[in-house]
């Protein structure tokens, strides 16, 4: 079974530029999560989708971050414009339906904003 796929693995951009990350969840997984992991900290949930609907985006900085999951499968997270403090690893995870079987994570995208 293929795992959660994310791209790119690494990205370096200048502040005020825009960037987008892509995630393809495990086939059949209805729930998709985007997490931000700053160096030395635990992951923080940015947004959670159930199929193509948003379940929780309470910690998403909506003035600069946006995410979509148009067909209920893959998802894109965008930052525009980026700030230095956005430097982090962005992790995508998916689960079959909520957390009953746990959430499964991709390898993440490491973003460096200079």
């Amino acid at each position, binding site marked *: 079974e293929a795992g*959660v796929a994310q791209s790119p693995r690494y990205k370096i951009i200048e502040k005020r530029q825009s960037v987008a990350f892509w995630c393809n969840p495990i086939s059949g997984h209805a*729930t998709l*999560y985007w997490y931000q992991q700053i160096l*030395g*900290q*635990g*992951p*923080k*949930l940015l947004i*959670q989708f*159930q199929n193509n609907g948003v*379940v*929780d985006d309470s910690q998403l900085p909506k003035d600069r971050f946006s995410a979509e999951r148009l067909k209920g499968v893959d998802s894109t997270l965008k930052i525009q414009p980026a700030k230095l403090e956005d430097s982090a690893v962005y*992790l995508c*995870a998916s689960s079959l*339906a*909520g*957390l*009953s*079987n*746990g*959430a*499964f*994570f*991709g*390898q*993440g995208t490491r973003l460096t904003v200079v």
Partner: protein
Amino acid sequence: AQSVTQPDIHITVSEGASLELRCNYSYGATPYLFWYVQSPGQGLQLLLKYFSGDTLVQGIKGFEAEFKRSQSSFNLRKPSVHWSDAAEYFCAGSSGGYNKLIFGAGTRLAVHP
């Protein structure tokens, strides 16, 4: 507020020694609880999970965890640590199956030969 706390930032053990990583939670009802491991440059791998039932749960790689309601704890244990266990370990919790999964700050495990 709902939270997960890992009191130990860094732990060092000798190879072959036993291991216990601490996790405390703050939830009104019995939460969904998880332990994940993260190797450098990698995503998080699920070690084990607890929802209800038997309070001692077995996971992958020889790990187990015990849910103790009276202590609001869900500590991770392994009887004999291998050098390959060196990694960062995260405890996480949720108040329900479709609710937010909250992570602790993590415990970095170093293993001495």
